[in-house]
């Protein structure tokens, strides 16, 4: 059978979470074709700054060259293939290989060949041996992406309507956002897709997986809400946006009526910036946000969360997080965690925001402990040949209703907070690429009969 079937019902092979042959095909057909996030611009602010990352699983150096341009370079000497750069980050104008000493400028050009006249001759043409680098590197809202496919569309085309939603998260402050320090890294025994799917917009798992977070006061209670404004109803409401190409987002709103847009969890001195830097429709996405999260296909996710009482009763904060997943094998994933902060926010608020992040959605946060157990167990449950031969169902939310067009939100937007349509969109894009069809898909309306 095909790994994904859409009729008569939406069925997905369980094999895709624990099969090394599929994993190898993913590296070739997905990670070599897609735009991949590698770094936040603020990590390499000055010329010579670099960080080491992976594109898929290939090791790269992301650096700002002496002219201020951002370079993504394969972390491997052109001579014998030695890994050039061993630190997680640093600052240097040149990279020198530890084996025979070939030296590269941070633009990637080969500048020095040790004992060149004696060993390689005076006529050796160094210009032919620049470090390998992906043909496309581009930046959107501080996010550095790269792509190995020479035929790939531009980053903006690739992101499509997702660019508009990413702007609501990252483009609303006068001075932008910056990474706090250095990303944390964890190794998990799960398939990389599980977290991509979860963060694509799974609002269905929240009340179950994260039940203790409700019990322990991390979700706004009725009394929290009453202190924030006029409560409009008993339930948080949600919407999901399918932006095409496998990119999706979920937006959950606090049940509040407010006379003007309200961005609870941010200090009020930032509210005016948010309203000024976003369009009215984008302000609508941000106002009274409870949580917003999404996945940029394939392995990049973002999350903006308002959590209550993160440092004692009444101490609420919003925070922004990015996660990136390296697909090390079918059942092993490295997760890279980026905590972000608005530039110029007060120290006191930054501390509260950081506590909110670390205690809930940080690498050691309560939500992650519970999510991780699900992701690991999915791969473990499919170690056997028999279990892998079955499929699973993914039809939740097929009855969702389109959101009012007057909202002006791009993509295919549907009302309802508990749906699996974003996971279907992710997996349909995955399937298109695995079947060798890399052409751009438009927003796929899987919620209406597909």
């Amino acid at each position, binding site marked *: 059978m095909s790994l994904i079937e859409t009729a008569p019902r939406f069925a997905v092979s369980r094999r895709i979470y624990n099969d090394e042959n599929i994993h190898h095909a993913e590296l070739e057909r997905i990670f070599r074709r897609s735009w991949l996030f590698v770094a936040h611009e603020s990590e390499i602010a000055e010329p010579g700054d670099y960080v080491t990352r992976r594109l898929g699983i290939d090791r790269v150096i992301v650096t700002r060259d002496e002219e201020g341009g951002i370079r993504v370079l394969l972390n491997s000497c052109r001579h014998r293939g030695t890994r050039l750069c061993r630190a997680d980050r*640093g600052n240097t104008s040149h990279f020198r290989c530890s084996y025979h000493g070939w030296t590269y400028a941070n633009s990637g050009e080969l500048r020095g060949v040790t004992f060149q006249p004696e060993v390689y001759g005076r006529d050796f043409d160094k210009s032919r041996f620049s470090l390998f680098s992906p043909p496309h590197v581009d930046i959107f809202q501080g996010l550095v992406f790269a792509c190995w496919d020479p035929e790939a569309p531009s980053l903006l085309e690739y992101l499509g309507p997702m660019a508009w939603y990413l702007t609501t998260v990252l483009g609303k402050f006068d001075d932008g956002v910056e990474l706090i320090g250095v990303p944390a890294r964890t190794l998990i025994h799960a398939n990389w897709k599980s977290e991509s799917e979860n963060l694509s917009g799974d609002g269905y798992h929240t009340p179950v997986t994260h039940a*203790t977070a409700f019990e322990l006061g991390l979700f706004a209670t009725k009394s929290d809400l009453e202190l924030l404004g006029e409560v409009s109803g008993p339930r948080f409401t949600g919407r999901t946006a399918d932006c095409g190409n496998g990119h999706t987002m979920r937006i959950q709103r606090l049940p509040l009526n407010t006379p003007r847009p309200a961005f609870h969890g941010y200090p009020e001195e930032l509210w005016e910036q948010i309203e000024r830097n976003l369009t009215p429709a984008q302000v609508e996405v941000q106002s009274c946000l409870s949580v917003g999260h999404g996945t940029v296909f394939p392995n990049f996710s973002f999350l903006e969360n308002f959590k209550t009482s993160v440092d004692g009763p009444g101490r609420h904060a919003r925070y922004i997080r990015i996660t990136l997943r390296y697909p090390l094998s079918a059942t092993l994933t490295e997760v890279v965690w980026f905590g972000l902060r608005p530039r110029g926010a007060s120290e006191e608020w930054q501390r509260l925001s950081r506590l909110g992040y670390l205690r809930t959605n940080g690498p*050691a946060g309560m939500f992650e402990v519970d999510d991780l157990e699900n992701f690991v167990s999915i791969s473990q449950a499919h170690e056997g040949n028999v279990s892998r031969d079955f499929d699973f169902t993914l039809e939740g939310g097929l009855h969702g209703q389109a959101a009012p067009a007057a909202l002006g939100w791009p993509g295919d937007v549907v009302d309802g907070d508990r749906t699996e349509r974003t996971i279907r969109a992710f997996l349909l894009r995955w399937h298109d690429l695995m079947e060798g069809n890399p052409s751009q898909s438009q927003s796929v309306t899987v919620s209406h009969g597909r």
Partner: protein
Amino acid sequence: MIPALQVPGRWGVPERDFADAMAHAEASAFLARESEYMDSRRFSEWAELVDESFRYLVPVPVTPDNPLSPPFDPECLLLDESKASMIQLWFRRYEKGMYEIAWGENPPVRLRHFVTNVRVRGTDDENVYDVRSNVLLIGVRQGDAPAFLSAERFDLVRRTDTGLRLLRRIAILDETLLAFPQVRAML
């Protein structure tokens, strides 16, 4: 730099000489008791060993580009907990009526602390000791193979009328890519 991470003897900060053998024996016994309560999930007894102003900090480990820099980011934390946050957001998840829905703690990861190389120094406050130790933490999730975390701990311990109390713990991790069932652990 997060001020608390400027520990004496490291990265340019001067330190004092060791305290006497009695102080070492006392501190070792205190750390052993503290680990015993944590490993056996006797959380209310653990909390009694901890000062009201307790802070637990773990900076994000990093491989720097030279041997002189600290192996962590001095501005960036992985864990930042207080006594209140640990009671409310960690320990309450093991309570009856709660653990059935605390999926990450049921069954719990079995933790075992191996604490060695205890070093005790005085501080400017005669009632507060600078207590350092090496810790190997083993975590076992369900039937999985054991996983390991090793770290150096920089504790501040206060002498009170009712015994020693843990004021602050900083744990500097040795690994940068954390392969542990839950990073949410008291080292």
